[in-house]
């Protein structure tokens, strides 16, 4: 068995298309929710290997000290469906900006409130994007409750190299920016190999349809 996941050019183009359409929709609904214009970057599709996960994360995300939230997503198709984890990485967790974004006021900042804001915002962002992608692939997704990986931790601490049981995973990176309040964060969707195999089949199916 080839341990490396590979995409044909067609499959890659198709996935990019699916993601782009999904991001358009997501941007739309996020803008409605936040009542502000949300800029989403073109999703960057790539692969990370467990071996070099630290340097690859560094190249992908840039900043060194971050706050991060993870959340699992799974398909009604089970293991055969779209599943994986979404990690939202905040490089600047300014409390006021978070409050502005979530639009609820909780008085003075404290750790728990700030954490809750991070979790809520992450949940909204990953939900919007992933549901969009799933819809294109004609699947339905469920989500685990988001959990905090850490606040103000080194980027390398997000994925513990020692604990990873996979060799390679697919990554889709999406950047969010709200110009008006100068807020930005990045989301990394990570799909295990088995999910990617299934995704390739689905993409092939979509390609045949065209």
């Amino acid at each position, binding site marked *: 068995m080839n341990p490396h996941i590979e995409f044909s050019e067609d499959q890659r183009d198709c996935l990019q298309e699916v993601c782009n359409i999904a991001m358009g929709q997501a941007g739309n*609904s*996020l803008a*409605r*929710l936040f009542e502000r214009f949300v800029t989403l970057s073109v999703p960057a599709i790539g692969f990370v290997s467990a071996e070099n996960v630290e340097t690859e994360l560094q190249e992908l995300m840039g900043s060194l000290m971050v706050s991060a939230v993870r959340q699992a997503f799974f398909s009604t198709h089970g293991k055969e469906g779209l599943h994986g984890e979404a990690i939202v990485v905040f490089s600047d967790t300014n409390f006021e900006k978070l409050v502005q974004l*979530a*639009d*609820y*006021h*909780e008085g003075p900042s404290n750790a*728990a*409130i700030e*954490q*809750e804001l991070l*979790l*809520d915002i992450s*949940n*909204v962002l990953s*939900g*919007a994007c992933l*549901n969009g992608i799933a819809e294109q692939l004609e699947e339905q997704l*469920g*989500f685990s*409750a*988001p*959990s*905090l990986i850490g606040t103000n931790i080194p980027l390398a601490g997000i994925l513990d190299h020692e604990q990873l049981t996979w060799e390679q995973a697919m990554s889709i990176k999406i950047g969010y920016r709200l110009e008006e309040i100068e807020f930005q964060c990045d989301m990394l969707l990570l799909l295990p190999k088995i999910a990617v195999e299934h995704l390739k089949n689905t993409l092939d199916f979509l390609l045949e349809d065209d």
Partner: protein
Amino acid sequence: MDLITDINWKEHVVDRMDTGVFLVDRTIKVLFWNRFMVMHTGQPAESVEGRNLFELFPDFPRRWFERKVEGVFVLKNQAFSSWEQRPYLFKFAHNRPVTGGVESMYQDVSLMPVLDIAGKAIAVCVSIRDVTDAAIYATRMKETMETLEQEKNEQRILIKKLEEAQSQLLQSEKMAAIGQLAAGVAHEINNPIGFIKSNMTSLQKYTASLVQLLEAYIKIEDQLDQNSSEMQTIANTKDQIDFEYLVEDIGDLMTESMDGVNRVSKIVKDLKDFSHVDQGDWKYEDLHRCIDSTLNVAWNELKYKAEIKKQYGEVPQVFCMGSQLNQVFLNLLVNAAHAIENRGIITITTAQKGEKVLITVADTGSGMNQEQLRRVFEPFFTTKPVGKGTGLGMSLSYGIIDKHEGKIEVESQEGEGTTFNIWLPIEGPATRDALPA
């Protein structure tokens, strides 16, 4: 499949789940209220359904909940709330009315969209799970982790202290070893130096006598025939050996040699003192009197170099060996004077600090660099020109203070001066009972 269609899902399944379940519409009007909610709020479904949630529960976090519900409607996506950030949504009594231990039920909450056939969100279903047990466990675990972390830090500090203690021990071991060596060497040198010194004294006398005799002979030379061959021989010999210079130099040589021998025997004495600082009496002494008498002794060395500032505090009598401490003070004062190039200030401060007395000798001299600071108590280490210092003074002082179970510290800034701090326990060494009376 009849069985399944026959089931009254609402009343017999959702209503009886051990999870709080309720439905609200976009205006937060309650549409459904299951039995878990009835039991824990005490509000029957009939009096809740159809009414606004915030009317019923004025303490409810309104803005937060509205935003959450709106998010679910807009994105048709689940939303969550965790006990870790928000311990509860409703303040319910916990499930431990008897065993107790917590204030109220910890809750994990999720909100999910309820869609109609067209896929439009028409309501939000809120489920509330009792996670009190897990929360208690996690909280305790966190506390334990924090305690562990704290203990680990304390251990780290202890290890560091141990390392410091070990390096200090090494230093004193080194001193002790050098002390022993010095004692052996001193003993070996002491005997030959003894007879050299006494022989030199005799030789000095003998040469003086011989010169005296020669001078007597010279006086009768005039009476001899100046042209005789004997006289010629004497004159030749005098020329050959440079007689006049020889007579003049012999005395200088003897004096210089005696000086040298005296210096050697002083070094040997210092070495012996350094290796066993055991002479002198242990008794209560007035340290101010000790310092003053030392100042008197050293006055000749000090008066042209420094102004002495005394800042004596209220200090009790200290159980010590006064004569030994005098030596330490002498050392510090003379060194301070030597460190001052033209004219400076030497400040002597005393104070009581708890069970100890602190004596500080500070000068405005040339100071020391890091390397010198590190080696200042090392035997034979000196910053003075060759022949000026033995390099034993400070190590001797170190030994004396150590004997007193005190501490001697040094701070220095190059170009600004040096400060020595001496800490002495007022009641003397802890082992004083074992000291020779």
